[in-house]
């Protein structure tokens, strides 16, 4: 009888651990030279100047359906302001809204008129393009040698990791404060991923894959069509 109780207790502990005892991968401290280089590369990914990006967007929805659209995004990284218009391939505006500390929707057709959708979309854009506000940044390498920067968000809402996963590629992960993985963003720069920009050069990612993890997993694939720098003083 004691044995049965013990097994049940162990099973319960295992279940609890699977669902709740998550942890972030350990980071090995880097040498000072590697530390500085990794920190620089992590910072370099995020936009330093205002940009307007035109992206093709393919959404892989939880029900298996696939939708396509085109997104025009204006990002002012210093102010944290974002404006976004999503339109059908045929040109019909599906969503027109902005984020400036809060979400406002100027125009939207269902299902894009849900605030929840707008909040998630702006959070995706912030995660992919704007450096997280962090109280501290842990820099080093993962056990496999991948350089990593881990930002503990200053709003207490979890962690953001930038993993320098290869030449022209990096991965951004967002965890909750409970260390649960919520989003993975795979980013690919030219020349590994072709760029439509003149010369194929690229300080702007050519391809971005955003994976949402949770009960309703979905994936967004963004491919760069156009990019231009905006004046810093421009009002949205």
């Amino acid at each position, binding site marked *: 009888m004691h044995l049965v109780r013990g097994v049940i207790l162990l099973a319960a502990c295992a279940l609890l651990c699977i669902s709740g005892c998550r942890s972030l991968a350990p980071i090995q401290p880097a040498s000072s030279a590697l530390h500085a280089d990794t920190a620089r590369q992590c910072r370099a990914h995020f936009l330093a100047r205002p940009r307007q990006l035109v992206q*093709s967007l393919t959404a892989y929805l939880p029900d298996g*359906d696939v939708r396509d659209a085109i997104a025009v995004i204006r990002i002012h990284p210093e102010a944290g302001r974002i404006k976004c218009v999503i339109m059908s391939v045929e040109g019909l505006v599906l969503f027109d809204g902005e984020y400036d500390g809060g979400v406002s929707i100027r125009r939207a057709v269902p299902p894009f008129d849900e605030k929840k959708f707008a909040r998630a979309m702006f959070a995706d854009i912030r995660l992919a393009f704007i450096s997280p506000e962090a109280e501290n940044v842990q820099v080093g390498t993962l056990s496999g040698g991948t350089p990593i920067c881990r930002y503990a968000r200053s709003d207490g809402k979890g962690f953001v990791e930038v993993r320098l996963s290869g030449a022209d590629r990096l991965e951004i992960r967002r965890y909750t404060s409970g260390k649960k993985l919520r989003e993975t963003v795979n980013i690919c720069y030219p020349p590994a991923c072709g760029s439509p920009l003149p010369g194929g050069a690229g300080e702007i990612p050519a391809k971005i894959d955003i994976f949402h993890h949770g009960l309703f997993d979905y994936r967004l694939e963004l491919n760069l069509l156009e990019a231009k720098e905006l004046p810093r003083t421009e009002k949205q």
Partner: protein
Amino acid sequence: MKKISKNTEYAAFLTVLLACAVFLTGWADDLETLKEKVTFVESIQADFTQEKHLEMLDQPLISKGALYFQAPRSLRWEYSRPVRSVLLMHNNEIRRYVRTDSGMKAQKSRSLEAMRVFLGEICMWMQGEFDANPDLEARMKSDRRVVLTPKDPAMAEVIERIELRLTDTPGVIDAVAIHESSTSYTNIRFHDTKINAGIESAVFQELDPGRDKQ
């Protein structure tokens, strides 16, 4: 916040409208005689250039593609750039293919159902029944334009009006302008239009006719 409800079907409708507006062919001075003038049209094919104008864009976003129509109810509306996208309609079946990382993939039919609702009316338009839709007011202007205006305020929130500019050649349309607001509109210009040139039925049934059996 300008929140629009009850318009999912309108969104799909407008998409199809874009695709089918070109079929307002065979010109006349009024809508009544227009129908009689288009009876000779059995098929149309044309290339198009689409310009999307937005307040936040200095330059319009340019898309290119082609359309194919076979009377009475077959349609292919295809974008080749910047993103490939193919809409097929044949025998009352609608299919749409979108580009994915593993090639072109068909959308689930459920997401196309809203389009189906309006396709019957579109077919009437192709046959010259421009004023058949009670939700749209159709007017023929003296400068060879047909202007469609939504009567339903909910629909008018999505689109203000549609203008079709006709050429002086029966069966050939010059351009379509879809005005969503004063700062957001789409211009589609048609070129290399061919009437009754003969189109294989596979064009309306297969993603890549002759090459692809998806």
